[in-house]
């Protein structure tokens, strides 16, 4: 960081210095030529001026790389300023001119032995910044010397250089033994050197989580603590973060470290303060609570945290997110500091919301009056989100502090009187919770609530109001009228409201059976017969049966006593909280998620734990085993072996993969074989995302718009070398029932063409439905279907028709392994029984993380469908265009390079006949199916479209489409590293263009 700061400042300085505008005058013709002459001038002063001009041009983005040899010639000088400028130039251009950069190596090596330590340091620093492979070899010797230099400034610079080199060539650094030298530097006599060594080791350790680089013992800890007092603020952050990873042997060691860290709480740099807080929060765990020092420490923690809140808003935000954690773990620290969290009207919204959250956490009987007064104030603010949260907060206070409940309710009633729409709605939602927490206490307010019935337009508020009416139906005279008024627009309501309405009316019926018979029948029929929402129907049926079979039981079920709701909401789960406390000050603490959940490439991140308290010292002794257990646990995989193929298909009780659970990992042998076949030496083939994120992070997985990236080279590199025919493939699906291989008759196409492309206004091409499973072969069940890609999700859309005489139920579906790992992403949603002669539409979302096996033809998919009668098998083919992903647009340059790079043998050419679109219309049409046109060229009336598409497994297909005006025949040339797919892609092209 120090380095960057220096570097950055230097750059800035050059920039502002050069506002001596003469350097920044516009480039004239021949300027380069002029500069060249000046650079080679004999006069030192002229040379220096020339280099300054060159740097100025470079800074504003002009290309002065042509002057490389001339500038490098100026490197051998004893003028420090000139040398710095030349080094700056080198850092910028060495990468684009690696061969020329070698010319500079000699001077570097010489400079590393200069008597002036500043020059030695400058040279080694610059070499580290030049990210050119060829230079790194020459860097080793000078670096080794500099790491042992007599001057601390050189050593500290060299320490950082090791981390930089490691980033370029990790193996080299390890082979050269630099890591050990770096470890030795932790015991250096100079604090700056220690700090930089720690920083470098931390950075290296990040990419090697299990390397145990920072092996801490009491001696090194002592060194670190000594250096802590003397190094720069940035160095202190590294040292403190490093200390936080240490587990003290006993409470005495823990206390002595705490004592030496507490002065850092008075540092002006907020990052230092927060890192110190982290160390203290962690080591405090080991201190006995009755120790005087424990109390002292608690007291010392509050003021610096409060001070953080008077810093810039960005710092406040990070501080508040961390305070939120601290308050949950040790509420006593800030229990008297409620007022500092009061919101100022000009705080940024992100600060306001965080403050509010912490206020609720700190609310107690002692301060509730203050808090309520504040919250009421906030409820009249301008910002809608903030107001809503404030109103909710009042409800949370009522639930948390029983003594305050009454005041909270009256405050909420006041707010309802304001008639501000969103305030009223929020208030009603929270009052529902208050009713649940304190039954039979505040029902007197129901009348006021009912007055506002008409203004409720948000589902949550409507649902809450309906719940209240149903729950207290016996006290509301016109409950039936109120509920009936909601019933009119039943089908326009959201599910939440519909469910609530159903339950409320059933409750009403159980309480006042005589007057409401009609109403209950009406809602039951709406829910069961007219609705296509399975949840609603299920609930409707349950009530219906309950009511018709045993009204007493119904009463017991529907009007049962409800469990109490918990006092605190939104509490972080304790083990997660413990882990987050160990990560105070990091991104994890801002997001309140463990680092393993979101830091890219952090598969090996160790789950940190708080040390045990003094009483349970034995558990502290084995932190390694504990953390080792947390390291990248592979998801439990159900791996059916090859021979179980049939059993696999038959066993339909296997739960389909749900989105949250780990996907079933394919058996490795099979997978390897398939990948090799498809990819044969393909360098960019990440065939199946081998997900390693553990089930702890499901929410995150959902939020991220795209699945996490895995380095393709890791997989590709290993697989590329293995023989093309993997051991796993080759075993044919021998035990397959005959019907599997029966090709589906194409002649039925027209009969079942449901108007082709219905419901596909502008999306991707989807073929018309065809009959996949004729009724004669499946005991009366007929399935026709197609595939579609909608909003990035592949769907299998089916029509199931019951042509038998009896009802069909219990549908389930499963796929055989296939070329692209297609698998159902959820269960088949057919929840109602299928009566004779009834048809039902079902859309099954598919994932591409299933087991892989190469099929013939490639896009063949074997499916098993089960119902209460039997299991049926069929096979169908999906258009490969379903697999074209949305981000399949290649960069122009990449396209060009890839096109050249793929051998000509992999190119195949096809003709598409009788297509009457012009090139633009064709391009548009294809784009809808994620075939992206990258460039268009017109040569002699012939349009050439260059297109790219990417398959779900990462295979790129490049295409050249030639369209001759007036000629209905197109020519498509396809290039792909896996030429097997070309045929399928061509077929898709034809289908896409002609539909």
């Amino acid at each position, binding site marked *: 960081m120090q380095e960057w700061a220096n570097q950055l*400042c230097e750059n800035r300085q050059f920039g502002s210095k050069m*506002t001596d505008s003469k350097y920044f005058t516009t480039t004239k013709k021949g300027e380069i030529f002029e500069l060249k002459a000046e650079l080679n001038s004999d006069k030192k002063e002229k040379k220096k001026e020339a280099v300054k001009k060159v740097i100025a041009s470079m800074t504003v983005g002009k290309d002065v790389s042509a002057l490389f040899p001339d500038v490098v010639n100026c490197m051998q000088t004893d003028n420090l300023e000139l040398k710095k400028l030349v080094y700056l130039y080198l850092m910028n251009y060495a990468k684009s001119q690696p061969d020329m950069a070698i010319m500079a190596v000699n001077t570097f090596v010489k400079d590393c032995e200069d008597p002036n330590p*500043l020059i030695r340091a400058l040279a080694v620093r610059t070499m580290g910044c030049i990210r050119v492979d060829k230079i790194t070899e020459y860097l080793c010797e000078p670096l080794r010397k500099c790491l042992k230099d007599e001057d601390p400034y050189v050593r500290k610079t060299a320490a950082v250089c090791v981390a930089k080199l490691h980033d370029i060539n990790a193996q080299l650094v390890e082979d050269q033994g630099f890591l050990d030298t770096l470890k030795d530097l932790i015991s250096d006599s100079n604090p*700056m050197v220690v700090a930089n060594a720690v920083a470098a080791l931390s950075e290296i350790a990040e990419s090697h989580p299990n390397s145990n680089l920072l092996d801490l013992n009491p001696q090194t800890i002592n060194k670190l603590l000594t250096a802590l007092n003397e190094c720069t603020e940035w160095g202190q952050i590294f040292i403190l973060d490093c200390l936080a990873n240490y587990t003290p042997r006993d409470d005495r060691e823990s206390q002595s470290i705490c004592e030496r860290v507490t*002065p850092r709480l008075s540092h002006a740099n907020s990052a230092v303060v927060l890192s110190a807080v982290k160390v203290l929060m962690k080591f405090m765990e080991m201190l006995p609570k009755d120790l005087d020092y424990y109390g002292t420490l608690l007291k010392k923690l509050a003021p610096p945290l409060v001070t953080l809140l008077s810093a810039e808003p960005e710092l406040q935000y990070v501080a508040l997110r961390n305070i939120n954690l601290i308050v949950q773990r040790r509420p006593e620290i800030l229990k*008297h500091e409620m007022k500092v969290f009061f919101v100022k009207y*000009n705080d940024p*919204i*992100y600060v306001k919301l965080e403050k509010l959250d912490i206020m609720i956490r700190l609310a107690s009987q002692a301060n509730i009056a203050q808090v309520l007064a504040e919250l009421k104030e906030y409820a009249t603010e301008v910002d809608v989100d903030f107001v809503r949260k404030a109103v909710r907060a009042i409800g949370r206070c009522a639930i948390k502090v029983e003594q305050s409940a009454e005041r909270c309710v009256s405050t909420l009633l006041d707010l309802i009187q304001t008639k501000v729409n969103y305030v009223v709605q929020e208030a009603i939602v929270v009052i529902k919770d208050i009713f649940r927490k304190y039954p039979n206490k505040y029902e007197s307010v129901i009348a006021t609530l009912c007055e506002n019935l008409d203004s409720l337009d948000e589902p949550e508020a409507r649902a809450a109001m309906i719940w209240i009416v149903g729950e207290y139906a016996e006290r509301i005279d016109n409950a039936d009228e109120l509920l009936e008024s909601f019933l009119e627009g039943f089908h326009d309501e959201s599910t939440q409201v519909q469910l609530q309405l159903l339950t409320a009316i059933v409750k009403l019926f159980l309480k006042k059976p005589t007057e409401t018979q009609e109403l209950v029948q009406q809602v039951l029929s709406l829910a069961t017969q007219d609705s296509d929402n399975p949840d609603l129907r299920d609930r409707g049926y349950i009530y219906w049966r309950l009511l018709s079979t045993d009204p007493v039981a119904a009463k017991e079920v529907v009007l049962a006593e409800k469990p109490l709701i918990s006092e605190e909401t939104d509490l972080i789960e304790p083990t997660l909280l413990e882990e987050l406390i160990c990560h105070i000050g990091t991104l994890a603490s801002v997001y309140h998620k463990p680092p393993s959940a979101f830091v890219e490439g952090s598969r090996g991140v160790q789950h940190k734990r708080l040390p045990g308290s003094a009483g349970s010292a034995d558990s502290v002794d084995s932190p390694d085993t504990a953390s080792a257990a947390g390291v990248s646990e592979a998801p439990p995989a159900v791996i059916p072996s090859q021979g179980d193929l049939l059993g696999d298909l038959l066993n339909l009780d296997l739960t389909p993969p749900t989105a949250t659970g780990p996907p079933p990992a394919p058996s490795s042998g099979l997978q390897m074989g398939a990948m090799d076949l498809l990819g044969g030496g393909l360098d960019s083939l990440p065939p199946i995302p081998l997900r390693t994120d553990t089930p702890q992070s499901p929410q995150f997985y959902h939020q991220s718009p795209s699945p996490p990236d895995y380095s393709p080279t890791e997989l590709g590199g290993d697989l590329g070398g293995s023989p093309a025919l993997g051991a796993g493939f080759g075993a044919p699906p021998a035990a397959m029932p005959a019907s599997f291989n029966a090709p589906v008759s194409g002649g039925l196409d027209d009969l079942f063409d449901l108007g082709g492309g219905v419901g596909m206004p502008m999306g991707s091409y989807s073929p018309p439905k065809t009959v996949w499973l004729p009724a004669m072969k499946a005991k009366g069940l007929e399935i026709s279907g197609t595939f579609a890609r909608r909003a990035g999700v592949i769907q299998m859309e089916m029509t199931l028709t019951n042509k038998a005489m009896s009802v069909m139920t219990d549908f389930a579906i499963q796929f055989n392994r296939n070329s692209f790992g297609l698998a159902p992403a959820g269960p088949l949603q057919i929840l109602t029984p299928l009566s004779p002669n009834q048809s039902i539409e079902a859309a099954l979302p598919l994932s591409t993380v299933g087991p892989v096996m190469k099929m013939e033809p490639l896009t063949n998919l074997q499916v098993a469908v089960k119902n209460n009668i039997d299991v049926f098998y069929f096979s169908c083919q999906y258009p490969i265009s379903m697999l074209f992903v949305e981000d399949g647009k290649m960069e122009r340059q990449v396209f060009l390079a890839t096109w050249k790079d793929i051998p000509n043998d992999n190119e195949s050419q096809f003709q598409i006949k009788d297509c009457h679109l012009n090139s633009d219309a064709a391009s548009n049409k294809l784009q809808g199916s994620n075939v992206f046109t990258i460039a268009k060229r017109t040569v002699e009336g012939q349009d050439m479209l260059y297109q790219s598409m990417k398959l779900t497994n990462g295979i790129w297909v490049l295409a050249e489409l030639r369209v001759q005006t007036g000629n209905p025949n197109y020519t498509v040339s396809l290039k792909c590293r896996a030429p097997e797919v070309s045929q399928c892609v061509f077929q898709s092209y034809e289908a896409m263009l002609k539909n």
Partner: protein
Amino acid sequence: MIHSLFLINHSGDIFLEKHWKSVISRSVCDYFFEAKEKAVEPENVAPVLQTPHHYLISIYRGKLFFLSVIQTEVPPLFVIEFLHRVADTIQVNRSSSDSGGGSNVGDTLPTGQLSNVPWRRAGVKYTNNEAYFDVIEEIDAILDKSGTTVFAEIQGVIEACVRLTGMPDLTLSFMNPRLLDDVSFHPCVRFKRWEAERVLSFIPPDGNFTLMNYHVSSQNLVAIPVYVKQSISFFETGPCGRLDITIGPKQNMGKTVENMMVTIHMPKAVLSANLTATQGNYTYDITTKVLVWDIGKLNPQKLPNLRGSLSIQAGTPKPEENPSLNIDLKIQQVAISGLKVSRLDMYGEKYKPFKGVKYLTKAGKFQVRT
């Protein structure tokens, strides 16, 4: 750590980018622009944003966004602090280049880092030896409708300007150091002596620097120098409202309150203000809906008053929100917390320096609710 840095202006143009390691496409900023669009006000853009492959940490200073792109787990405060330093550097450079400051490219590399007193260069020489300290306090407070203090605290800072020859060792002591709740020091201050004796003992850096920051929290009673009597009301019927504000001195330790200014963010519906001020001038900006009343010196004999009517857009409902008043003021020669420097001693050098301490109290985030 920080992978790239973008400087973005108010209207969303990237005008400077710096990449370490490798170039990250500008398109990564699109996520930021999206958030900026959503936040409406630039101040409301969340400082930490998550994108599929990077984290964006930004600060907003002087109408510029400093946006850093990071890829690995980094302490965000580290980054934010760093960005603020970058912003400082740029500001300094701006002002120094404006005033035609000399070369910024030193012929020597930083040398201090290796000595035992890294913050001070060796061989400092002055003909006039002087050490000046400014004790500056800002009052952060929220007062409610009735004028009662909801919350008040003081942020203090001691700025120093020390030009002393050689290696002077200074000791600064306070009359009442126990007032201070939380302190943070320049690295030159010996923390142990503060812990033990509550005195500031230090070898100062050369020139201007911040000696310490401190915090006097709401646990102690914070004196509020002025009182504000105000009423802003809107009528249920008819397109108008009334405003009446009077300000008077309260606890100001016998000193004059200067640079008094009241700023009010009016509800959107307020079209214009027709007011009379007994002292100072007022302006109402129709576009931003900000009413500013610049009072100047507060005269205890004749209290300044601003009153009159507000007109509201016809047909709009009565505004729901209550505008807050933002107060600005200055009091010379007083530190409102009562903090006083008792003495300044110098050791290690023989000469007699000029010494001086000045006090100043200002309003920080000082708000009155209505």
